[in-house]
């Protein structure tokens, strides 16, 4: 996406909402969705549109977990750390990912391919432990299955892997 494309997308997102502070979170979520993060230009434009301080928007962007100020990797790996998953060994999956990718939850791999997120309960406790890669569920996952899944995504490029 070029800079001008980005600016016009930002404008499109913002102007879909009335000029009212109560839509700040929704507009930022749309930006997060469109760009995988909230660009600086997005905050600036939104603050001007809503006539509110940039600092207010930054404090929201850092407060809400759904928002991020830095770009995420091509593939987003979410490890559910809800109680059911935790009891059934979700942290072992995190340790394994660390061994495979060299990154911790919240980080993005150097090649920009993967981000790991430790997320709150996804409501699929019967399938614990659960790992999502780009929204695809890998259920009742065992540690020894992790490297195979990662490899598939690493090789598949931008199209992503198939469902396990």
């Amino acid at each position, binding site marked *: 996406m070029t800079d001008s494309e980005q600016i016009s997308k930002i404008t499109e997102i913002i102007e879909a909402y009335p000029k009212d502070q*109560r839509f700040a979170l929704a507009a930022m979520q749309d930006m997060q969705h469109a760009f995988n993060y909230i660009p600086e230009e997005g905050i600036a434009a939104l603050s001007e549109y809503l006539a509110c301080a940039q600092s207010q928007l930054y404090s929201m962007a850092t*407060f809400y977990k759904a928002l991020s100020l830095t770009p995420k990797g091509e593939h987003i790996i979410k490890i559910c750390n809800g*109680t*059911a998953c935790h009891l059934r060994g979700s942290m072992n999956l995190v340790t394994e990912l660390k061994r495979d990718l060299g990154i911790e939850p919240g980080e993005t791999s150097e090649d920009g391919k993967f981000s790991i997120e430790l997320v709150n*309960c996804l*409501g*699929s*406790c*019967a399938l614990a432990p659960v790992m999502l890669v780009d929204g695809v569920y890998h259920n009742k996952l065992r540690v*020894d299955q992790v490297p195979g899944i990662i490899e598939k995504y690493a090789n598949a490029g931008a199209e992503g892997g198939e469902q396990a």
Partner: protein
Amino acid sequence: MINGTEKILVCCGTGCIANGALDVAAALEAELAARNLSGDIAIDVVRTGCSGECEQGPVVRFMPRDLMYYRVSAKDAAAVVDSLEGEPVKKLLFRKDGEFFEHMDDNPYYALQHKVVLKDVGIIDPLSIDDYIARGGYEGLKRALTMTPDEIISEVEKSGLRGKGGAGFPTGTKWRSAASYDEWPKYIVCNGDEGDPGAFMDGSTMEGCPHAVIEGMIIGALAIQAEEGILYIRDEYALARDHIQHAIDDAYAAGILGESILGTDHKLDLSIVRGGGAFVCGESTALMQSIEGKVGEPRAKYVRSVQRGLFDHPTVLNNVESLASIPIILREGGEKYAELGTEKSKGTKVFAMVGKVKHTGLVEVPMGTTLRTLIYDIGGGIIGDRPFKAIQTGGPSGGCIPESLLDLPVDFDTLVEYGAMMGSGGMIVMDDRSCMVEVARYYVDFLCEESCGKCTPCREGLRQMRKILTDICEGRGKDGDIELLERIGHMMQDASLCALGRTAPNPVLTTIKFFRNEYEAHINEKSCPAGVCAKLTQFAIDPDKCIGCGLCQRACPADAISGERKEAHVIDPTKCIACGSCREACNVDAVLTERRPS
């Protein structure tokens, strides 16, 4: 004979979808089309909400014959369609003691439940307003439209309904108080920010029967005379959000929402606000801040939200399950609803039962049902028939309940007397391989991340508790740590600004109360009795029990296990990372837990 009234219900709740339910539904449709059964004598494939037993999903049910199949895969489609007019597919049936059963109620998991809130969930197509109406939907609203606000509130008061988000505040009282302020606009808000880890009752309700929540909100709006309502739904619940939005759109189209509710001069607009992924936003005042487009920090409640809530106007905030209980109360009367439950806790409660229990899933039972019934009769007991250790209720605000209290009735008040709570409905079952200190640390860790940081007791208290608990789990615990944890906990209960901080010490205080010996083992003997804390534990294989099957070797992520087939295997302690995968994999209980030498 197939006569055209048949339906195949495919559970498409979040759990079953993750297990491939959408593929199953598509395969069934393709199979029906291929046999031209979709012509004159159409059999509909209905994608329903969560039918409950997520562990056995995807669940498929053929109606009205009530033939229920479990763990169905797309490959079974042909056999399932074959069986519609013939013998059932045995391998997909419920099986008990070597016998096969066809009907839903043959399975004790369902037979012992009593569905009120979930009565349509798993039966209807959540995307069809007609399905909802056909089962009595919006009848409660029609009745409410003939009543005065005062009469509606009286009906809810008669039902004895209490807020099912966990606090248990009487819904009728809340509505009456909001109705008493002559100040407009007023708002009705649905709290769909279900953030407790291990809880998915509200998500499943919104997914499976969105119109019940909407009908409840409309009735509430009539009672307090609000003309705008907002559903605040958690960011992670994409499917619930889609279904609610779809239901809102349909309700507008049907003249149920908008300028004129069913032709009357009442009006109501409903919209969704998507949560931002912050646990604290489940707290009422933080939730309202978030809707206003601000950082979701709670405020002190000198003035209640019913007087000055959203945008400083009178606001009623109800939980999803409470709102979904309203339509039936209006339809059948408050007294009928109050027949269920205990003296002070009326009606039913939905629980999400997860963890080390055999039948994980969604359960609705009358208030007052015992934990033992829930875990053993409905849940089928502990996985692998291991010993029960504790059940954690109420999420990070709740407590751990030991076996000695399993026969207590579960309602709003009883568990509180014993230092635990029912909470919003999350129930996590733990066996002897769950470490209670580690569980406490897990919740404190969670809350540390989720505390908004506004008030010092919560922010700093949690941080200090996390440090102490981590030390204990990693073998650095010392004398006095338990007492210090208790002191910090009591301070937080007294001094925190909102309910998050005031209840945050509960997991720590209840585990200390009921499982103090585990804390002491960690501190004094530097050992973890459950074999969970990696720094204190190592694993070994009992050569007498090991049958050399190689399951542990395959499960080991560290390549620490070696051995020939059919001969006893050995763990190399220098490579072992003490993750416990081998113990989980072993079918003959040959993996021993030992104290790791320091």
